[in-house]
């Protein structure tokens, strides 16, 4: 994990513990305790004993299942699209340099600095009804676009846009492990682009793709703002569904059950992700 740069650290086990006490207390109170409470509180009811009824309800309720299913396929599609869009840019940036490449990189990273509320608003102005895309189409004498606003395509487009930079950075860090010499050597031996990609590049960046995938799954299972603002009212992704169950239906038990279900679906990905960041952290760079 974090190795002390000097083994003879300034000692003081007690002062160390005191210094970390407050954030640790906050972590226990506002993360570990709620998670524990959520898991236990949805299966054990004081005075009534154990019951899985809220889970039974979720997994037999057609609407809940449709929402879960929507979340799963939006997650799969969005993750695939993010990698598909970011990969060509990452490959280009890895093997090209120059002022144009630098510009491409800045542009591709730009969405890092556009908060999601603003993304949602810009989306509506561009792809919404009578947005700029419609304006241009009409000016060209073409029919208007069937707008993706308030359809499942809406959040997917928004979510791909918003997270393009992070996917790109993850892929670039993986591509850093691919030596240009090995690619050149393969090319000299007559390997085509596809062979080089699948035989030389892909094996080296596998772990980055897995981390990107884990990161995507975690993010999409808790996506809220963009699906809420750009997606259909029904079915809805797990984020908006939890919010509506909690706030509009004032039903914390079922909202917490839904939360625990998202924890369960993300558990494996969460483990992969935390392992990767813990590895990346080891020792000062």
């Amino acid at each position: 994990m974090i190795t002390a740069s000097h083994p003879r650290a300034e000692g003081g086990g007690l002062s160390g513990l005191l210094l970390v006490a407050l954030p640790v207390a906050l972590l226990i109170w506002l993360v570990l305790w709620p998670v524990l409470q959520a898991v236990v509180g949805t299966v054990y009811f004081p005075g009534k004993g154990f019951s899985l009824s809220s889970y039974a309800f979720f997994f037999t309720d057609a609407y809940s299942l449709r929402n879960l299913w929507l979340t799963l396929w939006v997650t799969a599609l969005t993750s695939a699209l993010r990698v598909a869009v970011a990969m060509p840019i990452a490959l280009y940036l890895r093997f090209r340099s120059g002022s144009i490449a630098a510009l491409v990189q800045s542009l591709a990273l730009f969405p890092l600095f556009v908060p999601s509320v603003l993304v949602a608003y810009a989306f509506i102005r561009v792809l919404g009804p009578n947005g700029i895309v419609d304006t241009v189409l009409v000016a060209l004498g073409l029919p208007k676009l069937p707008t993706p606003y308030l359809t499942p395509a809406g959040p997917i487009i928004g979510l791909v846009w918003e997270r393009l930079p992070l996917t790109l950075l993850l892929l670039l860090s993986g591509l850093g492990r691919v030596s240009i010499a090995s690619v050149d050597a393969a090319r000299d031996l007559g390997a085509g682009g596809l062979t080089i990609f699948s035989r030389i590049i892909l094996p080296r960046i596998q772990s980055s793709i897995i981390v990107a995938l884990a990161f995507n799954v975690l993010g999409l299972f808790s996506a809220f703002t963009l699906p809420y603002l750009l997606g259909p009212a029904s079915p809805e992704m797990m984020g908006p569904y939890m919010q509506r169950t909690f706030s509009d239906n004032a039903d914390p038990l079922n909202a917490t059950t839904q939360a625990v279900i998202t924890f369960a679906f993300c558990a494996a990905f969460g483990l992969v992700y935390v392992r990767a960041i813990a590895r990346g952290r080891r020792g000062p760079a």
Partner: protein
Amino acid sequence: MTDLAVLSGAGKRVRRAAVDWTGIAFLAGLAVVILLPLIVTAVWAFAEVWRFPAIVPQRMGLGYWQDTLSRNDVWTALWLSLGITTTVTAISAAICFPAAYAFARLDFPGRNLLFLAFLSVQAFPKFGLIVATATIFLTLHLVGTFWGVVLIQLVGTLLYMIWIPVSAFQGVDRRLEEAARDVGATPMRVFWSITLPQALPTLFAAILITFVSTFYETDAAWLIGLPNVRTMPMVMISFINNALEVQYGAVLFVFLWVPSFLLMLAARRVMGADAFARGLGG
């Protein structure tokens, strides 16, 4: 990740190679997909009349700036947002920086385990965590209160406010500290005169990231804050949902982007792109 730096640095080395058509194609595509939506929305903020299907606004002007910025809900939300954000950032820095110092420099029992605990928060989908915490806040009557929002947003800042400063404190040159101590400086003096100044730029970066990301935070503010605590992003969302005049939202769009723009300028100076990627586990 050093390759990113190499890539951007390589721009200076003029290559007499063929024209980079691939790059130009990427550039054109990204300009349309990334920049155009933002530019179109920004133009809306300065359009007094823009009726479909005109390509450009019929009349430009600052009329809607006056209208939007004289709305009470906008100013109430702005002061509230700045209040919450400042409180969160200040508390976070006060409790996390000392902890980061301890994680980086002191040896205490359970150090690795506790640090791993902070990382493991990342293994949960965030919105589920917010819902779980909100359920507890219900019983504590913290839902819909200023402090409820502060607490939930504070938790969201813990990881980065510990993590980024840990590397800052680890990066401090130990030989300078030892030299100062050799000439008789007290440990406190060494910390204030040697350690802190070296770590300061990174600490400042952590504060900036925390401030800006808290300012824009919507998920927790929505679930815990509404309906009583309406932060700035919530006003933006109500403008989107209630479909008021397009320009209200557009003016707010430009206005709200300012903090992010400042962060972007700072990011170019203080942080390399690799810091982001390493933070993500790249």
